[in-house]
């Protein structure tokens, strides 16, 4: 960088940092200085010296307000992958586990808390259900949020390769399928519009094991592993 032979060789080393900070070097030379910076503390100290001393020259530059959208672009660039959709937060089983949930009972309390603090929108009538298996131990919690059903399989453990299907059972009717759920993942299911208005504390939810892809008949064909009534929150 310092090819001027009229300059004392002892001074040339000092110039690399100064030229780098001043900004007169080409791209290649800049990369070289940056590579050296990583393992030459004296060079780094020189660069810091010049940045601090010459930096005040920037006061001569008039401030210019950047456009409004710049901040939102920065915000998007630094957003954690999880925050891309708020939904992904409660869909993450890790989140529920992080919440300290070891049982579906606790999950139920947590859902109530989330409704209370507004993370889950409250509707005119808040309904939820804890689904228990034959042992009586609750293993899935579900909450109605508007036209959606939030399902948290907090303690649903199954190594069964069969699909896990969720059913809505209205009084005196055949079960309606609400879709497949995944034992390892909280999820939001959409309640069919014709059923949404008919969710009352008389209705129940049930989970059955079905062939891959779900029940071929539209009705539960496998064993029901858990069920529970909707209750008002």
């Amino acid at each position, binding site marked *: 960088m310092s090819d*001027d032979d009229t300059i004392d060789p002892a001074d040339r080393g000092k110039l690399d940092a*100064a030229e780098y900070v001043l*900004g007169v070097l080409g791209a290649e030379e*800049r990369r070289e200085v940056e590579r050296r910076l990583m393992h030459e503390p004296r060079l780094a100290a020189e660069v810091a010296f010049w*940045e601090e001393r010459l930096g005040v020259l920037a006061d001569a*530059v008039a401030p210019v307000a950047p456009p409004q959208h710049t901040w939102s672009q*920065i915000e998007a660039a*630094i957003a954690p992958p999880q925050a891309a959709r708020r939904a992904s937060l409660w869909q993450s089983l890790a989140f529920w586990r992080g919440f300290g949930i070891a049982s579906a009972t606790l999950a139920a309390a947590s859902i109530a808390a989330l409704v209370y603090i507004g993370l889950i929108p409250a509707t005119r009538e808040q309904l939820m259900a804890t689904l228990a298996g034959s042992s009586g131990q609750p293993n899935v919690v579900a909450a109605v949020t508007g036209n959606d059903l939030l399902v948290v399989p907090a303690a649903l453990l199954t190594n069964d390769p069969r699909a896990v299907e969720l059913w809505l059972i209205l009084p005196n009717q055949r079960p309606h399928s609400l879709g497949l759920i995944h034992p390892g993942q909280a999820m939001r299911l959409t309640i069919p519009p014709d059923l949404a208005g008919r969710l009352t504390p008389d209705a129940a939810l049930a989970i059955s094991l079905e062939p891959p892809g779900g029940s071929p008949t539209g009705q539960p064909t496998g064993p029901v592993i858990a069920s529970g009534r909707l209750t008002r929150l």
Partner: protein
Amino acid sequence: MDADAARSRELAAALVRVAGGDRAALRLVYQETSAKLFGVCLRILKDRSEAEDVLQDVYVTVWRKADSFDPGRASPITWMVAIARNRSIDRLRSRAAGGRFEPIEAADVVSDPAPAALERVELAQQQQRLARCLEELEARHATAIRAAFLDGATYEQLAARMNVPLGTMKSWIRRALLKLRACLER
């Protein structure tokens, strides 16, 4: 001066929070510094949309590297100006060789507004010292130093703009830098 010092302390504290992953703190830093840094980027790049791109990159860098900011060693604004200048200069260098020609006329460089601007504000010690040391240089050498810093121009561009041979420009700048170094250390 006191207000500047208080602002600097606040910024340093905000950067420490940014290092801890505090997005609200980054927003605060952005609100306090973005106009200044955008001015710096714009001055070097002379292109609004490129300056916007680089500014975005600067704050993402601040977000990622805030933990390397050492409040004991650098002032927050100096640290951020250095990032903004480095990013802008890198962008400038990456433009196709012989692409955009510097639209600034030599006359603009000669009548650089820096001294007037420096006089207008209550000068901090650092600024006063640099101004004094620049005054000790030959006027055109000081002009070349300011133009190099503010515009991120290479030796070649400076030589063309000030209409002197490349070797002369290198010699001016290097000698000026060594003199400045000696003066600033005094």
